[in-house]
């Protein structure tokens, strides 16, 4: 494996991690707000808060890790994406900031208000929408070079069917991932009312999630034929992914093995993510930037990989401890422990 591939794999892992944990977080916020509006708050709020509270900051670090690692391994991306993404990325940052801060303010500071809950829920939809524009831009066609500097064509981006399909996909995926996870979590907590409600949400969002995902592939045909062709070459990965999807829906439908259902879901998204990433290879930004011409120098790459391995040695035991104390601790999950924050 070349250093370039190793670097992008590390970043891919963290991006995928962020997609999963952040989706759970964003979706949970939305369901919480939705249940407030529909008067079902008493069913969901407790279960959602018990999961989110100890881990929200960890979710954010996944994102930071990804963009810092990107600049480290592929410094040229800082130039191309930095110049073009000013507006969409700034909007995402602002929403993320409001969301993160108000989560802390309400959870620890006792600032409780319906308005904030709803605002919080909505930011959970706008953030994936604005972040997903990066994906759209990477497909090419929206950035042109003017006087040697890259410039983003906002109007083209805003009116492109591809960009809207990706936005819709990001929303359905967020809600689906989150609902499946929370169904399992609620079941783990022996909270039947919440399990039932979340199971319903999971089933509702399963269809739209798979349809919009398929829709992207169709859109790609018109937008970036080269990428489309490479996607088709990897059809078997997508097929496997669909099989896993069917498995998740089956388990949820039959009210069984919710843990397995979530595992299959992670597998489904991992395969699709891998297939998408592999077909994007070697481009980081069509057609200007590839893995190879944006890669950092040899000595920095080696230093980063060494730091990464040392870092993982520190992180994995810590994450394990966190999960054991909260996610897998029956007493805590069921709410029998009176573990109030500080």
């Amino acid at each position, binding site marked *: 494996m070349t250093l370039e591939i190793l670097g992008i794999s590390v970043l891919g892992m963290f991006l995928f991690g962020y997609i999963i944990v952040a989706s759970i977080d964003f979706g949970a916020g939305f369901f919480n707000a939705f249940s407030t509006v529909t008067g079902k708050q008493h069913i969901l709020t407790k279960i959602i808060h018990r999961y989110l509270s100890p881990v929200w900051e960890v979710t954010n670090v996944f994102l930071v890790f990804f*963009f*810092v690692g990107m600049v480290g391994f592929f410094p040229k991306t800082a130039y191309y994406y930095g110049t073009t993404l000013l507006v969409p990325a700034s909007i995402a940052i602002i929403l993320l900031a409001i969301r993160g801060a108000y989560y802390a303010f309400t959870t620890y500071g006792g600032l409780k208000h319906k308005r904030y809950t709803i605002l919080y829920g909505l930011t959970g939809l706008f953030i994936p929408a604005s972040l997903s524009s990066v994906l759209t831009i990477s497909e090419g066609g929206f950035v042109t070079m003017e006087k040697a500097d890259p410039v983003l064509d906002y109007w083209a981006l805003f009116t492109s069917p591809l960009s809207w399909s990706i936005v819709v996909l990001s929303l359905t995926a967020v809600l689906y991932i989150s609902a499946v996870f929370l169904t399992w979590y609620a079941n783990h907590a022996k909270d039947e009312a919440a399990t039932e409600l979340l199971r319903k949400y999971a089933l509702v969002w399963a269809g739209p999630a798979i349809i919009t995902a398929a829709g992207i592939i169709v859109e790609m045909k018109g937008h970036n034929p080269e990428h489309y062709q490479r996607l088709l070459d990897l059809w078997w990965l997508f097929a496997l992914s669909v099989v896993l999807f069917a498995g998740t829906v089956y388990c949820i439908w039959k009210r069984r093995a919710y843990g397995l259902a979530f595992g299959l879901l992670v597998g489904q998204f991992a395969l699709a993510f891998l297939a998408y990433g592999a077909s994007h290879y070697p481009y980081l930004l069509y057609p200007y930037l590839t893995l190879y011409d944006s890669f950092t*120098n040899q000595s*920095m790459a080696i230093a980063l990989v060494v730091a990464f391995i040392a870092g993982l040695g520190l992180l994995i035991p810590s994450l394990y401890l966190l999960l054991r104390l*909260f996610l897998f601790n029956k007493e805590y999950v069921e709410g029998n422990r009176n573990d109030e924050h500080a």
Partner: protein
Amino acid sequence: MGNGDSLFFSRVLTELTLSFHIIYATIGVGVPLMIMIAQWVGIKKQDEHYILLARRWTRGFVITVAVGVVTGTAIGLQLSLLWPNFMELAGNVIALPLFMETFAFFFEAIFLGIYIYTWDRFKNQKKHLLLLIPVAIGASFSAVFITIVNAFMSAPQGFDLVNGELVNVSPLVAMFNPAMPTKVAHVLVTAYMTSAFVLASIGAFRLLKGSDHTYHKKALFLMMKLGLIFSIATAVIGDFSGKYLAQYQPEKLAAAEWHFESEKGAPLILYGVLDNGEVKYALKIPSALSVLAHGVPNAEVTGLNEFPKDEVPPLYIHYLFDSMVTIGMGMTALALVYVIGTWRKWRFVVSKWFRWLLVLGGPLSIIAIETGWWLTEVGRQPWVLRGILRTKDAATTSGHVDTMLLLFACLYLILGVGSVVVLIRMFRKNSVEQELEDRASEKAGDIR
């Protein structure tokens, strides 16, 4: 919007974001150490007051961390958005500490989550205290790593530029640049000092507002003692920072001191105004600048006139330097008087006016942090990477920076006001007296 405007607004937005982040970041670096010390004292002395101190500070800390995290995420992304050319170059040479910083965050975030939710989980309180150690280490190391990046900007090394191409990159040599030792030490120690004085000023404020509880007195005394230690360390390391500047960035020191002609036995100029290149109304301490720069009274200090005109930083950094040093000296003196006065039971240290001075200590320390960073960053101008890349060549070419500046200004306003309101409400709602009672009865087994 033309490119000149992009540059101007990028500067303003960077200044705004960093100046805001640094307040919360400094508290984030220093407060875990203070919590740790309080909890440790509490466990050792079996004194509920100190334990409750640690617990209440933790609650407030969570709020400041949240703002620190979101503004940090903002600055992290903004660096690439506003200074793409710089980040491309820096990414090649100094990405290593930036990358290591994320591990420090990770470590801190995980254990903070565990720590705040396990207050009553362990029979043995010491085990709970152990969980705080990674939080404090993670926070301090994020400061260490980011400060290394900043030090690199002042004293870049570890690579060669051949025809505009970077060659022979050595990440470790870049990390251990000459600016790094003093800068890292100064940033860490000032963060501890500031946190101690901020917590002390809360204690002093409660005492002034009528609560005469020994809880606040213990908090105040403990924090002033720590503040004293760290403020002395700050001044000592600040002196080393001056020596670093004299050797590696003489133009910054000369501009900060309005030192125009190279001379031996140079005087230290405090305050004053500049009138057509002449210093007026200033306080001059003979030979003190030579001592600050080289450690001996008659050493020669390079003057500003020896540098090309377009490489001289703005002269107003003089006031930034003076403010920082004045506050540093003032706080050391204040803490010294308070600590000695408390031991010797001098009456005036419990008087109203003296306590108001203690209340002022927190905000003043934060001002010193801000002026210190402005001094460093403005004093490096016109360079973003000293001697290599000018600030004007590093900025983004994208338009819309002005609109983003407006949006971010609103964001920081909301976050700033929000965090203060939440913190005040949080501590109003449960008073110390009430909480101490609750805990006592909980222990006695009345509840649960």
